[in-house]
């Protein structure tokens, strides 16, 4: 049964980019593409072979695979609703976060490996932004850990709604922070514009300029999976774990779809930040996470304020 939740996560990962694309097209007044358009694009890419520059080393060839595998392994730490995940131990959220970071690290060094100055610039920015966004995730998980007194992702979420209704306060703040973390980690709108055509303003796109065919497809799939991972984390805050599993699964799918639509809305109505204003926007997420952390300290009465 644990496999079922992983299947659900993978299924929604396939649907999220299509629905986001549909939302964006609808808002822009274009004809809506099919939900399966991104999948068709990926199949087209898979049919092509990859071309490698002679100046690159094996890192460049191995990086997309490492990226995909690290993201896929981190899915094993997650589960839908009240189900138990495949891998779980005390403090597993550290491994979860750094597995995602390993993938990103390999993408960064593969971008450096090509020797292109554009890609080096993109790698530089990606490293800075992922470094800035990291504390926000950890502070949110730490406040959950404080609130529930557990340290593995499974136990954190399964014990969250038991003690009091204040879990929803943390849930709202955490959902906001995680949504924006997902946008930052996937280099979407307020931080980076995936549709931009100028290399100087790109972040993620400029890192994968040299990747082609099969490798490019793998990189796209990994970023879909990442959206699904963050969506699963957000859904964990919302789904009530006492319901039967099939209702939870329906809830899960609905939440992921809503997430995709929200991303479409955010991307349509938000302008991209100026590049110099990105760091302050990202550090704001950590600031909000700290406020959530402090309020958890008060609510869980670790520090007693009258």
């Amino acid at each position: 049964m644990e496999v079922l939740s992983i299947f659900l996560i993978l299924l929604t990962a396939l649907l999220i980019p299509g629905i986001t694309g549909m939302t964006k097209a609808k808002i822009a007044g274009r004809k809506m593409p099919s939900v399966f358009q991104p999948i068709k694009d990926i199949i087209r890419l898979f049919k092509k072979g990859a071309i490698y520059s002679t100046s690159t080393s094996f890192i460049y060839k191995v990086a997309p695979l490492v990226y995909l595998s690290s993201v896929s392994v981190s899915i094993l730490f997650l589960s839908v609703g009240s189900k138990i995940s495949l891998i779980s131990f005390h403090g597993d959220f550290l491994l979860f976060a750094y597995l995602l970071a390993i993938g990103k690290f390999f993408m960064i060094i593969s971008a450096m490996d090509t020797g292109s100055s554009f890609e080096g610039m993109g790698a530089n920015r990606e490293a800075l932004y992922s470094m800035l966004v990291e504390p926000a995730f950890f502070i949110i998980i730490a406040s959950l850990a404080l609130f529930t007194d557990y340290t593995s992702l499974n136990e954190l979420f399964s014990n969250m709604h038991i003690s009091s209704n204040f879990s929803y306060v943390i849930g709202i703040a955490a959902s906001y922070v995680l949504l924006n973390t997902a946008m930052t980690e996937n280099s979407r709108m307020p931080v980076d514009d995936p549709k931009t055509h100028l290399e100087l303003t790109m972040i993620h796109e400029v890192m994968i300029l040299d990747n082609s065919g099969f490798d490019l497809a793998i990189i796209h799939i990994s970023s879909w999976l990442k959206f699904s991972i963050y969506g699963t984390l957000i859904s964990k805050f919302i789904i009530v774990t006492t319901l039967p599993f099939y209702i939870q699964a329906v809830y899960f799918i609905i939440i992921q779809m809503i997430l995709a639509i929200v991303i479409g809305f955010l991307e349509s109505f938000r302008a991209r930040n100026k590049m110099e204003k990105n760091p302050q926007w990202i550090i704001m997420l950590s600031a909000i996470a700290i406020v959530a952390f402090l309020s958890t300290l008060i609510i869980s009465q670790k520090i007693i304020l009258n």
Partner: protein
Amino acid sequence: MIDIFIILYSMTLIYFALAERVSKYVILLFIQGVLLFCVLFFSLYKIEIFDFIFILLETILVKAIILPWFMNKVRRQNQLKRENDTYIPVFYSIIIVVICLLVSFFLSSKLQDTQIHSKYFTVAFASVIFGIYFIIIHRNIFSHVVGYLIIENGIFLISLALGSKMPMMVNLAVLLDVLMGVLVLGIFVNRIGNTFESVEIGHLTQLKD
């Protein structure tokens, strides 16, 4: 319920540090006024009904409607620049507002006084410190008025923290001062705007008899 509004209030402080457009300050002041109204509504229900209604009306009218409206009017009249320039980059301001919150949090956790509601005190103290910081870092006199209002909101919360009997008197006194202060400053801003066609305080050094 009060906790939620206090948390939201502390988040508005972070957004004050993040916002760079002058019009956003006015919106944030309005939000703070509404949040203070909600805090009052849920914390003061024990006092007499007449006082209760009076305080609530006064809060929502002055803090959430009159002051933001007046600030907006001053902003329009002087045709301020949309972007506001600060002495310190916003990145550091956000870190400093977080430090403000942390310091006041630990301070109030040390203050184990039964007379003080330390939940209010945490945010109130952070708000006062941040208001002062806000005044220091901005070049523009309009933002100084905004900083002054942030401090005033902080004092308002402190008056709540010090017991539920007194806030009315404290509040009225403070409010009157601030209202007069803002009115005077508004005229001042207009005058500076008329004289120099900009509201940067740096120009004031050129004044001669």
